[in-house]
């Protein structure tokens, strides 16, 4: 009897592996294998065209002295620290507007979400380049207010700002998640609050925010991870210039790997980014203990 049990367990396990095999194979060959290879490459001098040469930690030592590395780190941190909170704020505001009970609200929701379907694409980045270019729409507007035409993407002071606005404009997916979160907040909490005489603003602070905090947390994590790897906009709109003021980490990594053909160096950069994002995410999780409120926990923290 024990024997047949064992056989059954084993065949169950086999069936289980078979069922997840599409994912498993994908993970092994498309995730794990390239990751292991990239770790190996990070310890080599690899030009793509000749076989990799083992150089130990030389790449990491060169990176430590590479001023473009520090520049791209600085640019990326500024981008993440400004664009993520702004985008979340914007997404939340739009979600609250779209959470009202007015006629035709689903129509408005569709219209407002529609641009997000093409949000991260190259086409939008090209459009952005034209809007903020020297003959672009923004300068036409500016001329009405008597402002001098300026190449927004060609000035070191404003170039990163245009990329941040592009990132904020891509608020759609965060907004949808916020909207779903807002719908989950029980109506009776608001009723109770208004009976107690709380103003709309007070209701937002005391009811909406705590109830929404897990959703905010989720969006924050996704936003931070996504922004650290931001590439398309910098690649298409500004190519990293002017004065490297928009040379984001992922863009620098790409240039090292595919333009300068230092694939080993680029792999090392990729692993440093992995560590940075992991640390940022861990910090977020630690901090979340102090501000994220889950409904099923007893006693509020909010």
């Amino acid at each position, binding site marked *: 009897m024990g024997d047949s049990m064992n056989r059954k367990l084993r065949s169950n396990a086999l069936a289980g592996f078979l069922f997840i095999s599409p994912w498993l194979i994908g993970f092994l*060959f*498309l*995730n794990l*294998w*390239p*990751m292991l*290879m*990239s770790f190996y*490459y990070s310890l080599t001098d690899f030009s*793509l*065209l*000749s076989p990799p040469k083992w150089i130990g930690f030389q790449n990491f030592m060169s990176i430590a002295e590479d001023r*473009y590395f520090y520049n791209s780190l600085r640019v990326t941190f500024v981008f993440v620290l400004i664009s993520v909170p702004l985008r979340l704020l914007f997404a939340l505001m739009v979600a609250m507007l779209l959470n009202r009970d007015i006629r035709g609200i689903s129509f408005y929701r569709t219209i407002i979400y529609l641009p997000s379907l093409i949000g991260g694409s190259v086409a939008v980045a090209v459009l952005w380049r034209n809007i903020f*270019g*020297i*003959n672009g729409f923004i300068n036409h507007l500016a001329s009405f207010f008597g402002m001098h035409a*300026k*190449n927004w*993407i*060609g*000035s*070191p002071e404003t170039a990163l700002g245009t990329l941040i606005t592009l990132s904020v404009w891509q608020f759609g997916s965060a907004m949808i998640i916020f909207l779903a979160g807002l719908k989950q907040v029980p109506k009776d909490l608001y009723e109770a609050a208004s009976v107690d005489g709380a103003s709309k603003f007070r209701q937002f602070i005391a009811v909406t925010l705590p109830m929404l905090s897990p959703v905010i947390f989720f969006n924050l*994590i996704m936003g931070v*991870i*996504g922004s650290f*790897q931001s590439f398309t906009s910098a690649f298409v709109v500004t190519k990293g*210039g*002017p*004065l*490297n003021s928009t040379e984001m980490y*992922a863009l620098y*990594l*790409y*240039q090292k*790997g*595919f*333009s*300068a*053909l230092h*694939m080993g160096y*680029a*792999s090392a950069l*990729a692993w440093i*980014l*992995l560590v940075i*994002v*992991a640390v940022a*995410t861990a910090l977020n999780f630690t901090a979340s203990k102090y501000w994220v409120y889950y409904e099923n926990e007893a006693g509020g923290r909010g």
Partner: protein
Amino acid sequence: MKKKFLRLGITLLLLTSFSTACSSLGVKDEAKPKTNTADTSASNGNESVKLRIMWWGSQARHDATLKMLDLYTKKHPNVTFEPEYSGFDGYLDKLSTEAASKNAPDIIQMDAAWLADWNARGQLSDLSTGININDVDPKLLETGEYNGKLTAVPLGGNAWGMIYDKSALEKLGIAPPKDGWTWEDYFSMGEKIKSMLGKDQYPFKDGTADSTLYANYQLSKGKGWPITQEGKFNYDKATWLEYANTFADLRKKGIVPPPDVQLADIDLDPTQDMLIKGQLIFKGMHAAQVSAYESLKPNSIGVAAIPKAEQPGGWLKATFYFSVNQDSKYKEEAKKFIDWFINDPEATEIDGTTRGIPISNNIVSVMKPKFNQGDQLTVEMIDMTAKSSQAFNPGAPGWADFGKEESDIKQQLMFGKITPEQAYDELAKAAKKYEK
């Protein structure tokens, strides 16, 4: 959460790693024995052959090349093509990636600047035999040789000179630049023109961050290339300071455009090119691109040589080259095609001057009477430059990365973040890493 990152974070590396993985799993070895058999069977000319060919260029060049490929297939029904073509942006990235996965095209359009590195890695096959090169200028041919072997066949004659808005100059009543004009002529003409132009119009761009124009300047002063062919840092400090200060002065006076304005200028983009939009009079340019300007601004383009000082400032060069991939299965067929491409009157007539002046002198003499306005301007610029010119320097091998630091430092100077002296020191410091 972390898994999500892992998947996204190394997407860029994933493709390469995976393709390398494939080759180490034996795909690469499989292709080897085929090479020999295909080579011999291809030469009898009956087996069907598919040649992959890759080039960069403008729409005019794409149209002409595709027409030529069709014609070749009509004449040799067993040969068909798989073309890959694009603009110059990203061309080398794509080519290198394909080469890394042992999947580069059979016939590759190459730039002079890449030849040293590609030859050093042995990726280009020997084209010394099988292509008729008797009508090609031996000096240009030499630029495609490596260790005595021809690995790159030049496709056109080219020169580095200047174009200008002829009709705008006429309207202002300014005489066009004369043969043998000097840098003093150039700068003083700029000051004179600016006072007659509108607020958003400029005689020429700020040359501070333009390394080509600086090379012209230093060469004309008899101080050689800023980075020599052998890979030595050769910026002449006095010449550099003179050059940088001249432009700093012009920038202060508003004679050249402010940095952000001129960064928006994109060559040959109908909505972004300042010369085409009438905001710029002079521009440094390759002869091979003149006909494209002529077609975008008909009857108003003039050409000139680069200004000189004690010595000439400009140079002649080959536009670019065709090379055959060392891994190609059809080397003989590829050579036959290149031979036809540069020598056949019908083929070269289709190509016109989209690749510069045809490389075969025989073809040029046949075609000359049929040249249109743009072609004639191209010839004119080459002739003007040919009167006295410098030897072209495609760049020292291994210095490709220096270009990024160089333009970065010079842009800081242009935006007024550092002084010309500091720029010189930084350039010298950056170059240390590349000098052997």
